[in-house]
């Protein structure tokens, strides 16, 4: 039986196990979630159909809007800032440290920047929760401060953002350094002959050349920031008050603590919609670029 004569149909068989699993674990639960978002349901008993009530309630819910604003802050901390710092670091390691102090020095530094990324994000939260503790934490001791980093409503979100920058930074550095390896060195040589400064080379050669990597990093980190749950759960549980509430934690709260399953489902559905739209837009822009 040759590949050609037997046609393509037989290959379907190989998809069956996954499609069944997908149906059970992703498609059906997602549809159930959307269905539940049109009901009032405590998780037990029969859900009561209430149409779009959960969604109209969402629009008027201040906590929901605040949680999305916090998401914007986390996109800055998890996607924008790490990408910007990561670009400078990757370029500095690649064409400055690597050339003057050896590739070993560059890759040792890269490994140190990357280290936080190997931690489970919940464990990173445990580590920082201890370091930021108001009475016995290391951070206050080092700087001689007396701040309640995670307990002060004016400070909590900024603190979480700082922790997330620390956590995320290594990822863009590694990706950008890999991307720089495919840039043709003759671009840099030509620029050097023209007497271009390091900054000019960075701006006019490095950044345009690794555009695809920048896109991928921004997309994956933005999605991660929209989904963020673990660090919020471990560091602040959304508090103090609502200071660090995010949609994923807000829906979790409605599902498992307030028994507002219908409302939680509506939040989760909106979040899913936003993520799919963001992904689609990014891919669209990327397609147009290339």
């Amino acid at each position, binding site marked *: 039986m040759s590949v*050609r004569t037997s046609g393509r149909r037989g290959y379907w068989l190989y998809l069956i196990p996954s499609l069944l699993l*997908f149906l059970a674990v992703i498609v059906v639960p997602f549809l159930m979630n959307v269905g539940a978002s049109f009901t009032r349901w405590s998780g037990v008993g029969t859900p009561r159909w209430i149409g779009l009530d959960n969604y109209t309630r969402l629009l008027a819910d201040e906590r929901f809007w605040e949680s999305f604003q916090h998401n914007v802050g986390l996109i800055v901390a998890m996607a924008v800032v790490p990408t910007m710092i990561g670009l400078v*670091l990757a370029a500095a390691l690649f064409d400055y440290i690597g050339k003057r102090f050896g590739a070993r020095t560059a890759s040792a530094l890269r490994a140190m920047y*990357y280290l936080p990324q190997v931690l489970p994000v919940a464990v990173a939260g445990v580590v920082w929760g*201890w370091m930021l503790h108001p009475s016995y934490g290391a951070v206050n001791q080092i700087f001689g401060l007396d701040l309640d980093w995670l307990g002060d409503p004016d400070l909590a979100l900024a603190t979480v953002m700082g922790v997330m920058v620390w956590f995320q930074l290594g*990822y863009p550095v*590694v990706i950008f350094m890999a991307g720089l390896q495919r840039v043709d060195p003759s671009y840099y040589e030509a620029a050097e002959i023209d007497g271009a400064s390091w900054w000019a080379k960075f701006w006019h050669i490095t950044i345009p050349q690794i555009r695809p990597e920048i896109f991928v990093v921004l997309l994956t980190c933005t999605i991660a920031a929209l989904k963020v749950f673990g660090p919020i759960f*471990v560091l602040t549980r959304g508090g103090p008050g609502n200071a660090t509430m995010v949609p994923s934690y807000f829906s979790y709260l409605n599902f498992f603590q307030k028994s507002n399953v219908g409302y939680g489902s509506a939040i*989760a559905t909106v979040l899913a919609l936003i993520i799919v739209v963001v992904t689609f837009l990014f891919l669209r822009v990327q397609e147009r670029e290339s």
Partner: protein
Amino acid sequence: MRGPGRWAVLLALVVLAVVMIFPFLIVGMNAVKSPAEYSSQGPLSLPDGLYLQGIVDFWNRVEFGTKLWNSLLISASVSVLAVVLSVLNAYALGIGRVQGRVWILALFLVANTLPQEALAYPLYYLAKGVGLYDTQLSVIIVMTAIQAAFGTYLLSAVLGQFPKEILEAAAIDGAGRLRSLWRIVVPISRPTINVLLIFFFIWTWNEFFLPLIFLISNDTQTVPVALGVLQGEKYMDATMSSASALLGVVPAIAFFLIFQRTLTRGVTVGAIK
């Protein structure tokens, strides 16, 4: 830039690197201090000696051995199962090029980007219905589906460029499809398959949300869930917190050291595809 300038750049990058690994250093340093030493000297002093009782006490208190075993069992099962499914799917999509493959791939991609919150409650409800709630198997099944979605996407791109001549030659020699997959496609794709195995293992190990929802009893919890849930509790003092942080950090660093090469290669493979 020459003379002092180049050293200034190096110095700045080294200082940043020290800031990045500082939490690891300080966790290690304080996990071996006695409570008395911690309260008199604070977190910044170097430890006087090696006091391991705090770690031992914490280990026993949370039955850390059980948590390690659960994490290991779940991560290893998910990585193997998800790789098998990814290979089967990618064989059909990348080499078989079945009809509608673009749509199927898009479905897998969407499944991978969906927030877990949008699946969580129904999955929780269904798991209770079929008696899988609070079992490791429930997390294994769900995580396998999610990881396989990514694996399919990545491997389909790799197998889409598989040299067709080899498969045609095998078919002429009488090899069936399953045999070609097992004897030719899998061995040749080994490097990518290994990267996927390691990534699935580490991602599943690091997962928090779904295990938090499904695994509520002491006997089923994973390492991140056990530590994350303890974090908020009142009885945690300074030494116990640092012991718990250390026990969470050590396995992650061990994986990093063991898999470092594959990891750095894998991060970049995953990014570009």
